[in-house]
């Protein structure tokens, strides 16, 4: 399968969305709304849920299933208010020493005049700035598309897991091809060059685990994933120097992939 085939699978409308994961893995779950600044962005589905006796803050980007829902959630492209809602809830989680799980699935942060004017860049920057210093375990799971700044804004975490057919990229293959070669038709080549698959992420050290998609969206799939999340959070909760390790995690790429000359 080519990298671009995987991109197409990652984008497929038939995959479970972020809220499907949250509702299936956490029970009971209480959805919480709003950024306490301006609005509630439906692209972010978030709240607090129970996982095998453990309270967890779950934050998911949701693309929506049908036309109506997709419009409401604007296809899983969060606006600044979405990132601010996520940050508000993550800080609340840290206050109560509750671990955080994020489910990332976005083509990128919402691209619009209003979003720019309300500080899309600032909202993402603020999330990264705070997440790098948030004293509670954070696990990010890429379940479909991991589109650029809009994705890492919820993935500055202690662990990054990727579903087998998810992708993580600095730019869409189409965007990359049209900028570099003035030809969006060369997206397949760009996808290859960008090294955006879960296996690439694993070998670069950007992701720690690849999650098998066997039975994707079924009860057994969610049970298996839920157990795995619980075990990881249990381990992360007793980890010492969590913040130093998180810092080193992101710090390592610059060391590893540069040279001195």
């Amino acid at each position, binding site marked *: 399968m080519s990298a671009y085939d995987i991109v197409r699978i990652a984008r497929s409308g038939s995959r479970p969305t972020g809220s499907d994961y949250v509702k299936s893995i956490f029970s009971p779950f209480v959805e919480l709304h709003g950024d306490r600044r301006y609005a509630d962005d439906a692209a972010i589905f978030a709240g607090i849920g129970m996982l095998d006796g453990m309270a967890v803050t779950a934050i998911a980007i949701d693309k929506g299933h049908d036309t109506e829902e997709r419009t409401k959630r604007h296809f899983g492209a969060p606006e600044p208010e979405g990132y601010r809602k996520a940050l508000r809830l993550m800080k609340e989680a840290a206050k109560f020493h509750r671990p955080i799980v994020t489910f990332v699935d976005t083509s990128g942060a919402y691209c619009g005049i209003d979003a*720019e004017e*309300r500080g899309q860049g600032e909202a993402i920057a603020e999330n990264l700035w705070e997440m790098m210093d948030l004293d509670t375990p954070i696990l990010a799971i890429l379940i479909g598309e991991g589109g650029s*700044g809009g994705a890492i804004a919820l993935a500055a975490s202690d662990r990054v897991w990727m579903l087998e057919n998810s992708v993580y990229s600095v730019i869409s293959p189409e965007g990359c091809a049209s900028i570099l070669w003035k030809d969006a038709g060369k997206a397949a080549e760009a996808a290859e060059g960008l090294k955006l698959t879960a296996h690439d*992420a694993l070998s670069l050290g950007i992701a720690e685990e690849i999650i098998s998609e066997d039975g994707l969206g079924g009860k057994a799939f969610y049970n298996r994933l839920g157990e795995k999340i619980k075990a990881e959070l249990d381990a992360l909760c007793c980890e010492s120097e969590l913040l130093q390790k998180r810092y080193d995690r992101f710090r390592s790429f*610059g060391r590893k992939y*540069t040279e001195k000359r």
Partner: protein
Amino acid sequence: MPRLKFLFKPQNELEKRGRKAAPLYGEPEKTCPNCHRTLTVKTLEETYGVCSCGYHFRMGAKERLDFIADKDSFYELFGDIRSTDPLSFPGYQEKLRKAESVSGGKEAVLTGTCTIKGEKCALFIMDSLFMMGSMGAATGEKITRLFEYATGNNLPVVGFTVSGGARMQEGMLSLMQMAATSGAVKRHSNKGLFYLTVLTDPTTGGVTASFAMEGDIIIAEPGATIGFAGARVVEQTTRQPLPKGFQTAESMLDHGFVDAIVSRDEEKEMIRLLLAMHRREENERI
């Protein structure tokens, strides 16, 4: 406050009409894209690349350094850190070599320490001549190290940003630099140290969405393009005409995302003043 009066068209629209990029300070080109006045290179040198209409020409990192740092005060740090081609991305090696020869630098950012009108600080200056200031692993590494150095040595950081965003050719590794740099800025901040960002034309993408917007104080040059998504992408996606002055320093000021717009002739004094006001030991010479 020196707001750039957009005389003809907002800059983004100028670019759309086939203009590749705003002409650079120091280049032989002499027509101001804002007022269409013809300027001699000598005039531009005298005004540090500012037209009488207020338009600020872009400045390369080296010119910027000469302009901002006290003479002979700059001590370069981490100057040997270079990009590799970790993904073996088609054409990247050639692009890097070309960027090196065009900019005369080794990376898209210059890092070190200097004094600005006598105030000591750690300084980074991004370079539009090096792949449009795009952020790859080496760019992020240099900025991260500068913040670590400043944190260790109790120095404020002054940073000039100019960037087209994260560097595509390094894929996810570029993206990771957004978190790495943010982490380093946060630690610097936690130690009670001052970080001033100066947004210059253009500051966009992953740089806007990380360390550019994380300053204690954020100032911008008049007319600078500042945004996250590219203006053309926004226009194509929304199919709406962009408002006048969209994604300019002036618009960012109106929406509350920059503290002040400072023209180049006042920049150095403003930076000195802000550094002095944030100095930790008392000093009457402010």
